[in-house]
């Protein structure tokens, strides 16, 4: 079996534990001074790549590259991925102010360019980012590359010959098992694995691993005209208090009143 080259595409997002604050004017989330970290689903992706190497052997997984598109601070996110076990990192740097211009299609184009250049056999992404929740980038990427895709993966097995992967997918009402020829795109779901902690000694070691920087133009992508425009961000309506009913009859009467039955 020839060795695999895996690319883990990651995103730097507002930390999961923080409550988002709406920016003045309501056209976005206020990120100033807020802690941002590796998207949980992307973390699961990096963990899967490292586990594949541990399972198949170092010679069977010759390269794990962590990819991200974002501001210079995204280097910290990539260092976490390196500390988890990636060999090297690749950052497509955009200015902090241009980060909102990164939409699923442009990011998919960037990853496609990088995957071709780095000769990746598998690109693993999180199924969606916890800030934008699009669930589009992986699918668009597969379309752009003309590769097969297995999204919302909860189990990944590389075939004997290293030419295909068997993936169990989480779908409505259960799981679906698909076999995808390599090269392919896989997006991760929550139950795929439990990501390891980036321990302090590993983070120190990660500082020595190579981190390359590129610009969107290097992959022929121009971010100047995004197709999507964020119009408004609102908080959900505050929860109204409910009424308590005395017994089943009054419950039925209330439901009839509200025309629910």
């Amino acid at each position, binding site marked *: 079996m020839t060795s695999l080259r895996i690319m883990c595409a990651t995103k730097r997002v507002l930390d*999961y*534990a923080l409550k988002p604050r709406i920016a003045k004017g309501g056209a976005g989330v206020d990120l100033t001074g807020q802690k941002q970290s590796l998207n*949980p689903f992307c973390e699961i992706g990096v963990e899967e790549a490292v586990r594949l190497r541990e399972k198949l052997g170092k010679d069977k997984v010759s390269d794990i590259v962590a990819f991200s598109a974002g501001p210079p601070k995204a280097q910290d996110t990539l260092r976490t991925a390196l500390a988890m076990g990636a060999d090297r990192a690749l950052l497509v740097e955009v200015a902090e102010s241009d980060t909102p211009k990164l939409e699923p299609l442009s990011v998919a184009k960037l990853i496609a360019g990088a995957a071709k250049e780095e000769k990746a056999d598998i690109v693993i992404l999180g199924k969606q980012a916890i800030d934008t929740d699009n669930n589009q980038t992986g699918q668009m990427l597969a379309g752009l590359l003309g590769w097969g895709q297995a999204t919302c993966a909860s189990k990944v097995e590389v075939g004997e010959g290293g030419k295909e992967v068997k993936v169990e997918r989480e779908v409505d009402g259960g799981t679906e098992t698909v076999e995808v020829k390599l090269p392919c795109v896989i997006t991760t779901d*929550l139950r795929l694995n*439990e990501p390891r*902690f980036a*321990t*302090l000694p590993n983070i120190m070691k990660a500082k020595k691993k190579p981190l390359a920087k590129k610009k969107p133009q290097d992959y022929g992508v121009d971010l100047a005209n995004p197709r999507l425009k964020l119009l408004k961000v609102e908080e959900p309506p505050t929860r109204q208090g409910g009424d308590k009913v005395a017994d089943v009859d009054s419950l039925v009467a209330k439901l009839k009143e509200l025309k629910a039955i």
Partner: protein
Amino acid sequence: MPPPAASTAVASSTALRYRVKQLYKQLLFLGRDWPQGYETYFRPRLHKAFTGQRQLETEDEIRKAISRAEYMVKELEAFYFLKKYRHVKRAYREDLL
């Protein structure tokens, strides 16, 4: 049994000291995300926990304390993992709840 050679006795105590310092730094690193606060809650308590054991003399006692610290490292990692897992599960996988 002949007493341990002077070199191993000294090496042992410096090795233990190094390990204790290493664990302190590791726990400090893990405490950054502690929900009740790093500067106000975690760091002072960690400092007290370590300085409270300052008087330990025998290698045996020190090794026991080191295992307790290593256990705390694993506990913290498990806590953070569960916190994140449960949050993502609640937000994205109603079918699993």
